[in-house]
């Protein structure tokens, strides 16, 4: 009976060892099947970082363009918006209230009260922003934009003399999207649509976010902007001026003009309305509808032309960016675009305006030969450790060496299935993982050699090891949750190394030696 039990134990040990060897082969060699006349590995490839895969390098230079523009100038000599070239506004005489200048008036081409009109040379980068402080601020804002957008790998070089920037990003499907995020100046404006007078800008914005609403089975994506105290005050003033209202005209006019405008009432959220703005025949003295519009602009592009409804604003407006979305893919893309605008608003306007000068894909300086050298170095280290175990502990050492290789194979499979980004830092950190298991097996076998009680020794060894490793586990967990690829790479390698080690030790190492116990 005892002999049978011993035989079963030995068979179990052999089975586990064969299983570990099989796992090792799968981990280090792979499982190859024929796929389209080509042998392909069923085990996923390693997910290498841009340090290995190459980067996209964008060279941005300061925009040197300049143009003559007619601008509004306030009492203090500050520019307060560009005069609208198209003065054929249908809503002459509309009252606007801007930054304390109530009752300012427009009169088709004449000055607004409190403002003069001057033709000035407007430079993309005024002389006042051609300073090192501005360049550094621009770089800092771009870094924050990229971090907000969870860009895992990037580097920015600033030429402190010229202000030019060189940005390296991982070359993936999002590279062009991030390039836009860098290049956009992020200049936000709300202007009077009729005159072009600037009503609000970036300094009035508190925060912005991308939100969506689902109604009748379709989604609408909004850019929600929350204004600061000053901004909220101006917004309230605007909400009283830029509205649809009825006016009675006493003078007789004969011209009938009708303009159909697709617009959205800001305060009413997503409701799209077709409003008819008209100057109808007033000879009958019927009230006519007159609408004063604002335009919400980002980097000179109008996001929306609108007017205010009757709802309370509470210092917040929601700008519908896309509507009638039914596909989840479209929803994701729309939210991504809205998030990009909200990021631009949250991080503020770049002091400098940049234009893309050059865009190159740079291959990694780490060539295949280097990767092969790394593999060889790891192989030599593992073989050396295995020989050391064999020489020191004989048969137990040989089993330990096989178990050690099996552990590393499972870690390699785990990091591939969990999509861990392999960086130079994570490769260097993996040395610790190799050492960890070796030290564990070495300590365990040393104790086993002395008193031969595998189960007790196993508990002691693993307990003392993990008490010692608590700080490393803390580092692993904290680093794993960071957004930077280098940091996450270190954290993930440590995390999976430790997790696999606990499970592997309990399932395989313990079983083999306890079953092998005499």
């Amino acid at each position, binding site marked *: 009976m005892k002999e049978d039990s011993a035989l079963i134990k030995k068979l179990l040990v052999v089975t586990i060892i064969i299983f570990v060897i099989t796992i090792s082969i799968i981990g280090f060699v792979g499982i190859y099947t024929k796929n389209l006349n080509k042998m392909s590995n069923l085990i996923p490839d390693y997910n290498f970082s841009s340090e290995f895969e190459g980067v996209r390098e964008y060279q941005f230079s300061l925009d040197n363009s300049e143009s003559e523009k007619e601008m509004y100038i306030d009492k203090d000599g500050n520019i307060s918006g560009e005069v609208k070239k198209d003065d054929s506004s249908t809503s002459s005489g509309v009252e606007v209230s801007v930054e304390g200048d109530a009752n300012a008036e427009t009169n088709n081409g004449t000055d607004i009260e409190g403002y003069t009109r001057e033709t000035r040379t407007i430079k993309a980068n005024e002389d006042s922003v051609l300073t090192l402080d501005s360049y550094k601020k621009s770089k800092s804002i771009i870094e924050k934009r990229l971090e907000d957008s969870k860009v895992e790998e990037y580097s920015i*070089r600033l030429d402190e003399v010229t202000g030019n920037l060189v940005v390296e990003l991982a070359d993936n499907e999002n590279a062009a999207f991030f390039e836009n995020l860098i290049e956009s100046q992020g200049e936000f404006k709300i202007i009077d649509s009729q005159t072009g007078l600037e009503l609000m800008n970036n300094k009035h914005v508190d925060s912005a976010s991308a939100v969506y609403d689902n109604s009748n089975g379709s989604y609408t994506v909004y850019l929600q902007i929350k204004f600061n105290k000053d901004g909220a005050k101006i917004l309230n003033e605007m909400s009283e001026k830029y509205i649809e209202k009825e006016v009675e005209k006493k003078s007789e006019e004969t011209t009938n003009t009708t303009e159909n405008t697709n617009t959205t009432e800001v305060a009413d959220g997503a409701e799209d309305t077709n409003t008819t703005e008209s100057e109808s025949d007033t000879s009958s003295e019927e009230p006519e509808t007159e609408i004063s519009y604002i335009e919400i602009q980002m980097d000179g592009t109008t996001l929306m032309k609108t007017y205010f409804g009757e709802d309370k604003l509470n210092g917040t407006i929601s700008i519908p960016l896309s509507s009638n979305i039914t596909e989840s893919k479209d929803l994701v893309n729309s939210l991504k675009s809205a998030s990009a605008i909200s990021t631009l608003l949250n991080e503020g306007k770049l002091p400098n305006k940049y234009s893309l000068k050059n865009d190159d894909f740079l291959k990694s300086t780490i060539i295949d030969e280097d990767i092969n050298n790394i593999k060889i170095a790891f192989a030599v280290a593992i073989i050396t450790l295995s020989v050391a175990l064999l020489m020191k502990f004989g048969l137990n050492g040989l089993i330990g060496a096989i178990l050690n290789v099996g552990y590393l194979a499972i870690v390699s499979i785990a990091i591939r299935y969990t999509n861990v980004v392999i960086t130079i830092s994570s490769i260097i950190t993996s040395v*610790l993982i190799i050492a960890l298991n070796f030290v564990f097996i070495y300590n365990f076998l040393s104790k086993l050699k002395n008193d031969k009680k595998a189960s007790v020794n196993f508990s002691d060894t693993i307990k003392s090891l993990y008490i010692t490793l608590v700080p490393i586990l803390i580092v692993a967990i904290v*680093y794993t949750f*960071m957004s930077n690829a280098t940091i996450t790479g270190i954290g993930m390698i440590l995390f999976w190394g430790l997790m696999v080690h606990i499970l592997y030790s309990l399932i395989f190492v313990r079983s083999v030696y306890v079953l092998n116990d005499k």
Partner: protein
Amino acid sequence: MKNKKIIILALVLLIIAGIVVVGLKGFNVDFMLKGHDSIEYKISDDFKISDVEDIAKSVFGEKKFKVRIIELFNDAVSINAENITTEEADNLVKKLDNKYKKVENPTDVEGENAESTETPESAETSDENTITETTSYEIISNPKIKIFSLLKPFIIPSIIAGIIIIIYVGFRYKKLKSINVILNLIGLIAISVLAILSVIAITRFPITIYVLPTIMLVVLSELILFCANQEKKLKNINED
């Protein structure tokens, strides 16, 4: 005890020497991380990067340079070096043209059309008119990467992890006088990092992207050894 004092003295001297070297000369930052110049050159044919490196070496001599392949189809290179002069750039592009530029309608003494894929060696030895004009180029100025920007991603997670570790160590080794253990741990890590940086500064070992993760590895290893040592002390106290 005597050995410990000698080690501490040696470390202090090493760190002082390191500070002096950094103060006088700074770190030997790899030129690719420093501000450097580069020239991009398009090669249509298949090429070996070692050939381009040979040409660059013949132009730059002892000056450090690095050739990187650019573009997905491996058809262009970026040659990077510290302060590329116009003369060096002219020379480099001329040599690259000789090696890689296809000859268009070369003058043929035999009166026959030469092959457009004529090799540079033959172009050099044949009539000089075969390569009519040098490829235009631009010396691109690449600003430096600040060492701090390499360090920056490590700062916040390391501070968070450091605080949690200190709290853990404080609780775990209460019997060993928490404050002393924490100060020892901080001191040990600070001294070892400074010592490594001093060695790097004194030996003029170039600062590359590999340095920071290597220091990280040393710090993590020290953390393990420190805790193992404290566990032993704790075990002894508990047994007593």
